[in-house]
């Protein structure tokens, strides 16, 4: 049986797809058979971030409608054998994701995979509800910014009332906070909410803090999940977060302002 992880946030543009791609790649690199599914029907983007946009033939909605089987629709990642991508449909509307259909696909995937990562669309509408409904774990991606924190709290309310686990009175979804676009310098200057502030407000387990990083745009430009950029701060932060998710005790990094040496001051870095 696979563990189903939803990457959610409520607010758009906070880094859900970046996180879904990085986390899925990280889990797969550790040898876990992992599938990552794009739930953003009509506005698919995960394929772009994963760099497999030209290999999409069938999509999630085709599988739900039984126009294609899973093996035809799943795209195997070229960099990592245990990673598969199930792209969203670009042309259908989001109502195409029926609860029965999504449930059936997840059930079938569960037979062959260890982890299923569900990349939720923004908002609290149908697609977002379908992405989180079957989840065992939720990673709430949040920026240290008021509207994002508020929306995250809203998502937590929905996770605890409208998910399958809530409806069947099963053990609640495990919820984790992933703080992204963190800028320690601005936090130090008092212009940005700190990790501790956000944790205090949301009271969630902290899975990781990903610093604001040029590497994220570079990664999406080239269709390479940022976790593969091991030189970069964001890549390392995602690597740490995967370790923590898998139960390793990894200390948090990138929370403090990095002291710049003389040369990096001189040449920029």
């Amino acid at each position: 049986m696979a563990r189903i992880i939803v990457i959610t946030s409520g607010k758009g543009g906070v880094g859900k797809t970046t996180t879904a791609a990085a986390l899925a790649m990280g889990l797969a690199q550790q040898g876990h058979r992992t599938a990552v599914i794009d739930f953003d029907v009509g506005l698919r983007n995960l394929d772009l971030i994963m760099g497999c946009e030209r290999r999409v033939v069938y999509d999630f909605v085709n599988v739900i409608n039984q126009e294609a089987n899973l093996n035809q629709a799943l795209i195997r990642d070229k960099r990592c054998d245990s990673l598969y991508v199930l792209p969203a449909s670009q042309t259908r509307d989001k109502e195409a994701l029926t609860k029965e259909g999504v449930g059936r696909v997840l059930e079938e995937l569960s037979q062959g995979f260890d982890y299923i990562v569900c990349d939720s669309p923004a908002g609290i509408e149908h697609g977002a509800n379908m992405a989180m409904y079957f989840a065992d774990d939720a990673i709430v991606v949040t920026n240290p910014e008021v509207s994002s924190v508020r929306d995250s709290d809203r998502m937590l309310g929905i996770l605890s009332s409208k998910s399958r686990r809530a409806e069947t009175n099963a053990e609640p979804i495990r919820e984790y906070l992933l703080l992204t676009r963190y800028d320690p310098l601005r936090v130090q200057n008092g212009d940005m909410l700190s990790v501790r502030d956000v944790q205090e407000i949301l009271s969630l387990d902290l899975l990781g803090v990903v610093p604001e990083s040029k590497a994220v745009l570079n990664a999406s430009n080239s269709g390479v999940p940022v976790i593969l950029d091991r030189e970069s701060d964001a890549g390392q932060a995602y690597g740490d977060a995967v370790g923590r998710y898998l139960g390793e005790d990894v200390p948090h990094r990138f929370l403090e302002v990095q002291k710049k040496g003389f040369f990096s001051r001189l040449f920029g870095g």
Partner: protein
Amino acid sequence: MGLLDLFRASRARGSATVAKERLQILVAHDRAERGRPSYLPKLQREIIEVIRKYVEIDMNAVSVNYEQEDTHEILELNIILPETARHRA
């Protein structure tokens, strides 16, 4: 970092403090709202209407509080009658 930034950094409160305070209030309010049954505002309106048949009261004179505890829910009604209640009828 310029000289100006040094002064800025030494400010007692940055905007983050304001953000945190606003969020704490907002989130507490949202959470309280979340657990409440959706009929409460209507209930409050109708209670006011009924009381107004007999006593002239203000819109704010009736407060409806809802609290959820482990095993039970508490619906608390608080009605403030004016000191010199003018009876109707």
